[in-house]
């Protein structure tokens, strides 16, 4: 058993956060965390990369400060072809990312929670190319329950 701060070290020591060490692929949820930047108009922006031979998204957890539109730059620095399937209101967004390519995606996400994104080709998702986009924030005031504040976990 580990405490939270020791977790990163132990994942590394055991080889759970890389390709083909303890496991065949990377255990999901062991990647880096990044924040989207926000323009003065509220529109957000971030870059997500696939680094060589890592088979993971960098960052694998991207945090948006609130719901809305985000412009992503997607960079494949790997020497293999991958793709991206991204959550967005209206339809999911899809893009091929041949080796050493860069592309763009514009997403609209409307509220708090986390949303998966992945590379659904081969078994990229199982090897580690599964990430999460986390949207911060609350329901708008007019949608909340009329009641006193309640205890939260």
């Amino acid at each position: 058993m580990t405490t939270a701060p020791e977790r990163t070290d132990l994942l590394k020591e055991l080889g759970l956060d890389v390709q083909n060490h303890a496991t065949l692929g990377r255990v999901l949820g062991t990647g880096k965390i990044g924040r989207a930047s926000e323009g003065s108009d509220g529109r957000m922006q971030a870059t997500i990369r696939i680094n060589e031979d890592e088979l993971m998204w960098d960052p694998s957890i991207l945090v948006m400060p609130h719901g809305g539109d985000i412009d992503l730059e997607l960079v494949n620095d790997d020497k293999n072809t991958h793709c991206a399937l991204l959550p967005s209101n209206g339809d999911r967004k899809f893009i091929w990312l041949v080796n050493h390519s860069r592309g763009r995606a514009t997403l609209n996400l409307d509220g708090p929670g986390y949303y998966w994104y992945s590379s659904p080709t081969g078994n990229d998702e199982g090897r580690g190319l599964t990430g999460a986009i986390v949207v911060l924030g609350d329901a708008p005031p007019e949608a909340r329950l009329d009641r006193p504040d309640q205890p939260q976990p």
Partner: protein
Amino acid sequence: MTTSEDYVDAGEAIDQGNLSGKMPGGEIAPPVTAAVTYERILNARNEPHNWLTYYGAYDGQRYSPLDQINTENVKRLVPAWVFQAGTTGLIAGASTYSFEAAPIVVDGIMFLTGWDGWIWALDAKTGVEIWRYKHAVPFDVSLCCGNVNRGCAVAQGKVFFVTANARLIALDATNGKMVWAKTYGDVRAGESATVAPLIVKNMVIVGSSGGEFGVRGHLDAFDLESGEHQWRCYMVPKPGEPGSETWPADGEAWARGGANCWVTSTFDPETNLLYVGTGNPAPDFDGEVREGDNLYTDSIVAVDADSGQIRWHHQCTPHDLWDYDSIAENILFEKDGRKLLGHFDKNGYFYVVDRTDGELVSVTPFVDRITWGAVTRDGRVTAKLYPEKEGEPVHFYPGPAGAKEWTHASYSPKTEFFYVPVQDTGATATRRRREFKESIPYWGAGVQVDAEDMAGSISAFDGNGEEKWRWRNELPMCASTLATGGDLVFAGEATGEFNALDARSGELLWQFQCGSGHHSNPTTYTVEGRQYIAVPVGWGGWAEGFLPGMLGAGHGSALFVFALPEPA
């Protein structure tokens, strides 16, 4: 090192639907819903080639006068086409989805919702996808009863549906593009949405889900053109409001009281009342923290359609300790000139109520095993078995999925019989007190539903509560029935069989194995004079609640559409 110029330009990500094999330019549906008005929905039964609204008509009968398919020829019914809704990539709540929609059909175009924010427009004759819309639903949204959606509504050029993260969305019905979206629930408080919206006049009516998370259930109305909020009706009164005397005077039990309206209402234009079933009180099984009757939980509630005010109510299970939501449909019918409604409750009793004033007409049991308590003909309720003592297991019938779950009975004005899908299953609940925390399930017991010794049936009742026939099944029946003018009752089984029964005798006339269990709402329509029967098939959802013995069954995600063979 490389410079950015070295990269291949991968361009801009596209809508995944562009890669679904559709013909370019084929993604526009004819404007069939442009002329769908309140007047037309009021008279939905006059256009039986369409299925215009969730129950087929405001009365909730789930009856179609179509009679091309009848007791004589139904044995020749064959699949006309199949729509496969299977999907790529991870979905929200992958382990719990189920296909529960009621397909809506307007002049040859079908509008169909799936789980996880999906909605499609299909050619109702061929099954070819015209457009699709996918709302992005958070993976971590609180879903008490599975990742499910029960359907959409159409009117005035738009199609309306809700998403699990408590959005009401209006799309342009020709191209599936969003016109407006409103948030009407708080996902951080454990609220979600699963209901099929109902169009009444210029309003879209929706209810909230999340009763197992200690929320305060409500019904909301929005202007269908602008999306502007019209009214909200809470089903748990605040201190001082009528009914608040049925909750503890001190404390906050009322604020966590449940009573969600997560199934579509029926509507009577003459009384101008919406007939709403409300969900269980929270916590489900620990009644000591909410002494009293707990209005308006587990009730049939009549709500004025224009003001959102409660006009009358009848509570089926006061101070519920068994998770007996009364969310089920209230079927409007007439008998001896009296305006009535029929309601098959989860608690095992069939209620007939005068829908003008809420006066109880009759109460009769519709399932064999009822041990939780007894309801007399005049509605008096005596509890007998319930999880009273901390840590002490209590077994009772019916279990928390009820003698009938949310899935709907139907009523044929031709035979004057109700056709109810019956679940005869018990459960053991062991009370475990817990503190309330927002967004955490608030049950107050450990519950184990029986995985053996169960039964089911399609049972036919008349308006006096007299059983007329029963078609027995080894397993509970967990899908809505459909009654037709061809004197047929369609009923899907948990094991995948789709059945046609003789509406007068209950005789099994036709059966087709769909490959996955039924937990949805079949509908019927015609295109170019040919009658079709459409049924979404996809086992899942809250299976541990209504049939834990089938938790390992394949999920499936197909819409089957049947018709008689075309003449050679």
